[in-house]
């Protein structure tokens, strides 16, 4: 098949219009030229008209798209949202001040970047509001039907002649056209019939669908940032929490339920790579368990608009410490978890296990597992001490208040690192995603095509002309029109053969 003709350069309209894209002059419906606030020359009238004209211009859209692209690069080169120390270490003081001044350390949330996005959204909305009514009118209009004037103005007609009479050929054309292009409108013309069929008129709405999807995605993002949160919590096995720390502000966010980690486990592949992290979580409502669920990476728990994701893990060591009073010999036992302030017995002060070292070495000597404690005695300054789990004799050297401390037993417990989010905008964002994909497909690969067939005859010969016009993909549609002409020509030849008993010339 030869490559079909392509319309020459200049077929596309220029101007401030957006969204709908008539390719050929005859495609442009008359009402598309009338725009509120515009004269015939499409010059905006008055300050409001000029403002509307500014926001409705595609130049603005393109400028915004390219500005967003260019500025976005900066945030991929300069690490975003790091601590002040990070920027101090990596950049000069002057450059740091510059970064601070234009919010380049968190540029995607800066006022100016968000302003660009808002501007793009407004631009899109004004464009759509302005153009949708005329497109809608075009889509909802009564089917045009065969029009001699429009037909005559079409280029690239496919024509053939046959001896089959008009009245025999006409119903055949109507049937074939109907089968390939949908509903057919027939119009009697001088010495014959004109037929018109169309497909895909609704596809002219495609760009609006994409743009609506884009706006919904942005709106969903705003909704999520206003009414959602991203937090995290490290939850040791067996413990519960009713709140999580927020990522951005370090504030605590209460949850509408209580979360308990029953168990955490890691599975490894043979080569030592992690295979799966699993947390068994129980949701408690009003103090009693509502349900239990295992979560893994990619399989979060969702409840009451809150999502709980497996994010990280770590281990903690809790110990049973024995406190022996140096003078009275009284013995107390305390279960101590890491980094939690505990009371010393007899109200002698407080202590905290700050670190567990599974193999502590001192001056090249391995002293086995050690707990490092901070002690805050009732009187005197706080100090640090170490409790040697495997070398109890070393524990006699120091006391915490009046007590000798030793480790009676200890166990390692895992904690699971959970990311906890709430995002009421996700539904809107996903709806936007679906509209964008569907809209792109419709806009790029479907089109509004109209096909015209004129069957007219004199006494001996019948003349058939076929022409098509599409709002885009003109050459793709041309192939179909060409195919239609071929089929019609074949049918006419068959008919002629049956009527005359002769092979057509």
């Amino acid at each position, binding site marked *: 098949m030869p490559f079909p003709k392509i319309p020459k350069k200049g077929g596309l309209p*220029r101007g401030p219009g957006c969204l709908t894209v008539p390719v050929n002059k005859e495609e442009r419906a008359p009402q598309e030229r009338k725009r509120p606030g515009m004269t015939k020359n499409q010059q905006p009238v008055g300050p409001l008209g000029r403002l509307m004209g500014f926001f409705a211009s595609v130049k603005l859209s393109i400028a915004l798209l390219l500005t967003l692209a260019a500025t976005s690069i900066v945030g991929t080169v300069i690490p975003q949202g790091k601590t002040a120390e990070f920027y101090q270490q990596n950049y000069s003081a002057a450059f740091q001040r510059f970064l601070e001044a234009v919010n380049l350390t968190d540029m995607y949330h800066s006022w100016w970047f968000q302003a660009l996005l808002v501007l793009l959204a407004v631009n899109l909305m004004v464009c759509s509001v302005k153009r949708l009514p005329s497109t809608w009118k075009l889509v909802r209009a009564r089917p045009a039907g065969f029009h001699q004037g429009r037909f005559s103005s079409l280029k690239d007609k496919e024509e053939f002649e046959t001896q089959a009479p008009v009245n025999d050929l006409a119903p055949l054309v109507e049937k074939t056209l109907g089968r390939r292009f949908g509903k057919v409108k027939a119009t009697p013309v001088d010495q014959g019939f004109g037929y018109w069929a169309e497909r895909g008129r609704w596809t002219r709405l495609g760009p609006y669908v994409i743009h609506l999807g884009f706006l919904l995605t942005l709106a969903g993002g705003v909704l999520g940032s206003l009414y959602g949160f*991203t937090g995290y919590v490290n939850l040791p096995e067996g413990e519960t929490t009713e709140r999580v720390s927020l990522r951005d502000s370090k504030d605590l966010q209460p949850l509408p339920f209580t979360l308990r980690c029953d168990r955490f486990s890691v599975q490894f592949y043979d080569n030592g790579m992690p295979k799966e992290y699993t947390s068994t979580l129980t949701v408690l409502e009003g103090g009693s368990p509502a349900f239990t669920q295992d979560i893994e990476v990619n399989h979060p728990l969702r409840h009451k608009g809150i999502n709980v994701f497996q994010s990280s893990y770590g281990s903690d060591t809790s110990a049973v410490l024995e406190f022996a009073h140096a003078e009275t010999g009284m013995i107390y036992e305390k279960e101590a978890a890491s980094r939690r302030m505990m009371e010393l017995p007899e109200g002698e002060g407080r202590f905290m296990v700050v670190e567990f070292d599974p193999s502590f070495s001192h001056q090249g000597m391995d002293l086995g597992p050690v707990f490092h404690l901070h002690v805050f005695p009732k009187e005197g300054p706080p100090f640090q001490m170490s409790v040697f789990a495997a070398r109890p004799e070393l524990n006699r050297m120091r006391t915490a208040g009046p007590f000798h401390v030793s480790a009676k037993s200890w166990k390692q417990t895992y904690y699971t690192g959970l990311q*906890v989010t709430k*995002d009421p905008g996700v539904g809107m964002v996903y709806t936007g995603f679906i509209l964008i994909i569907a809209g792109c497909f419709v806009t790029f690969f479907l089109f509004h095509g109209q096909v015209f067939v004129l069957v007219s005859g004199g006494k001996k010969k019948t003349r058939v002309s076929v022409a098509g016009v599409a709002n885009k993909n003109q050459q793709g549609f041309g192939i179909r029109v060409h195919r239609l002409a071929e089929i019609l020509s074949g049918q006419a030849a068959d008919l002629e053969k049956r009527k005359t008993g002769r092979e057509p010339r």
Partner: protein
Amino acid sequence: MTSSFVLSIVTFVYFGAMCLYWAGWVFHKPVLSRSATLVAVVGVAGNLAGFGLRWWESHQMGMGHIPLTNMYESLVFFAMVTMAVSLVLERQYRIRALGAVVAPFAFLAMAYASLKDADQVPLVPALQSNWLTAHVFTAFLGYAGFAAATGLAVMYLLKKSGPDSGIGRSLPEAPVLDQLMYQNILLGFLFLTVGIITGAVWANSAWGRYWSWDPKETWSLITWLIYAALIHLRLVRGWMGKRTAIFAIVGFAAVLFTWFGVNYLSGLHSYAS
């Protein structure tokens, strides 16, 4: 025979196809162009076989994931899809010379892949998702569309600079190239869009955030914005020809940076390097 062996042979097959395409184009010898097409078909078949074999090997090793999980595998997939798209267009539109500008992409991708680590490793928990397949598959279909468009843009510029010169003569008419380039950009744009969206949905199911402004995400958005601007310029401002061809080549530079350059920045996509 291992998949990496098959795929390293494919690299040479693509190299052969590329040379034959060039020879056929420059010397106007249809027999060379025809054999180039044949060699390219063999290359794609071998590429597909290597891809399938690697998948099967992954099952044999007890991992069983589609080979779309790291840089090596993405290069192999990209080469396969790009060469296949080129062959389809070549057949449909009778543009023999297309292979001359697209085969280098396939060859270079495979040659670069041979420098990359081809070891099969199991998937870390974050990658164990069906969204991974959808995300990589669509993103690289998009890249393939853009690669073909870039090849066509180069051809367009060559044709324009010398329609009757030795290399310009055997090329299709400029408007045909222009139109085909645009069609491929639309194809690439649709799949890039789906690729970004499936990535966002995946991120939301793995980490609870569909967008984090991670460098790779941001660069995919930059690429998307550039092509979106190009499409609007063409549809509404009537841009055609040379300007769009140059724009398409700039857009492909953004594609390449999204794919390779971002690995020099830090972020969530570290396993894709």
